[in-house]
């Protein structure tokens, strides 16, 4: 049995919250650079240039890339031979978020109650999901996400008869309706299958796949590519002012589903797509 101390979890989460908000993952930096070089519409190119500059400034001065430093999702993958000691795992994660947002000068954007709306003033709680796996590894993926793009995300319980065409139409319609609001260029996470709740988490998981990596199933890889092509053909462009750079990637995740259903969810992320992976 491998032991992991809560205090180590706290400090790992704290650092990850700060790092994720100051530094963009390398795969995103190189994708943005490539898109900038390929963009021909002047206004669009201009905007992509500012986005690149912003990444440099945030990194150099250690200030957040975006003022909306988000609500934090934490995906924990815990080996069944691991024992967490020295406190509660959930409390340790939230304590890490609390310390990261206080000490990192990150914006506190979480309200305690969705209708009474009093700010918790420390950006807790995080939205945590756990997966128990064989072995003795302990991994956490920390993903703060802004709500400009979260608000544009949608879910629909399609009929099986709607088929692949129904899925395509729903994805395109969601991106079209979102327009400029989620700060394009965007990343489009699509979940298909499972249940009402499962499909939402699939779409979120799809956003966390490294850019450039395609679905391993040939059918879904082709679907990702087709949707990517069609979305960029919409011409929404960076910030919605026209251009060929609307989506940086379309990622699909699937799960078995019920004979009577075809759930589909689209989770949109902005160009400030933050995540940080840590292993203890």
């Amino acid at each position, binding site marked *: 049995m491998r032991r992991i101390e809560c205090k180590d979890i706290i400090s790992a989460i704290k650092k990850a919250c700060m790092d994720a908000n100051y530094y963009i993952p390398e795969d995103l930096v190189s994708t943005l650079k490539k898109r900038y070089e390929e963009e021909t519409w002047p206004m669009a190119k201009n905007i992509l240039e500012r986005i690149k500059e912003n990444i440099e400034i945030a990194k150099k001065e250690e200030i957040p890339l975006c003022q909306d430093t988000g609500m934090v999702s934490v995906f924990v993958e815990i080996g069944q031979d691991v024992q967490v000691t020295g406190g509660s795992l959930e409390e340790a994660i939230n304590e890490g978020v609390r310390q990261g947002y206080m000490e990192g*000068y990150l914006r506190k954007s979480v309200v305690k109650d969705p209708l009474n709306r009093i700010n918790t003033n420390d950006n807790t709680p995080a939205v945590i999901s756990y997966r128990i796996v064989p072995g003795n590894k302990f991994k956490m993926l920390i993903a703060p996400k802004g709500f400009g793009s979260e608000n544009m995300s949608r879910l629909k319980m399609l009929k099986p008869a709607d088929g692949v065409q129904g899925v395509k139409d729903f994805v395109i319609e969601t991106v079209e309706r979102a327009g400029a609001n989620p700060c394009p260029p965007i990343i489009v996470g699509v979940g298909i299958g499972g249940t009402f709740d499962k499909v939402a988490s699939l779409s979120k998981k799809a956003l966390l796949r490294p850019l450039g990596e395609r679905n391993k199933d040939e059918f879904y890889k082709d679907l990702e590519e087709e949707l990517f*092509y069609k979305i960029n053909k919409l011409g*929404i462009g960076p910030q919605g002012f026209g251009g060929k750079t609307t989506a940086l990637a379309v990622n699909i995740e699937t799960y078995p589903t019920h004979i009577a259903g075809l759930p589909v969810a689209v989770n949109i992320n902005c160009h400030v797509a933050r995540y940080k992976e840590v292993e203890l």
Partner: protein
Amino acid sequence: MIKLTTPLTEEKIKDLKMGDNLLLTGTIYTARDAAHERLIRLMEKGKKLPIELKDQIIYYVGPSPAKPGRVIGAAGPTTSYRMDPYTPKLLDVGLKGMIGKGDRGKEVVESIVKNKAVYFVAIGGVAALLSKCIKEAEVVVYEDLGSEAIRRLKVEDLPLIVAIDSKGNNLYEIGRRMYLEKAEDNAYLD
């Protein structure tokens, strides 16, 4: 590049055209959802507003906290449509410009035309870059709202795009249409 200074008089607004890139220097105010709601509530009660809006610009921003030795934290625009229900009422009492991101509703565009105002866009998600153009920041009122308090900012060369001009030309509609009509190669074929 066009240089624009505050206050934003009608004379200056006349020359601003949809799609213009410009650098703004001068004094502006911040306000987002909660502050807007309070301002409108005061107006409904016939009370005096805590800031004079004539010829002023409101920036829709809730900055992150300032690190020691800094004026302000990251400070990029928030999505504007949430302010749509309030905006015409503020334009009617003299507000001349808004800075945000994303398209506006029909009533806001009509009010922009009627009141000869202008809607600017700052690029969403480049908040570190934008914060460098903010030279002074002080809370004017509603300190209890934290990040959402109304602040007075002194900005220097803040990069903005004219998204909706005083004639109602809207870059969110026209920019995209122009691109789709003119660009020969308008999608990736990866």
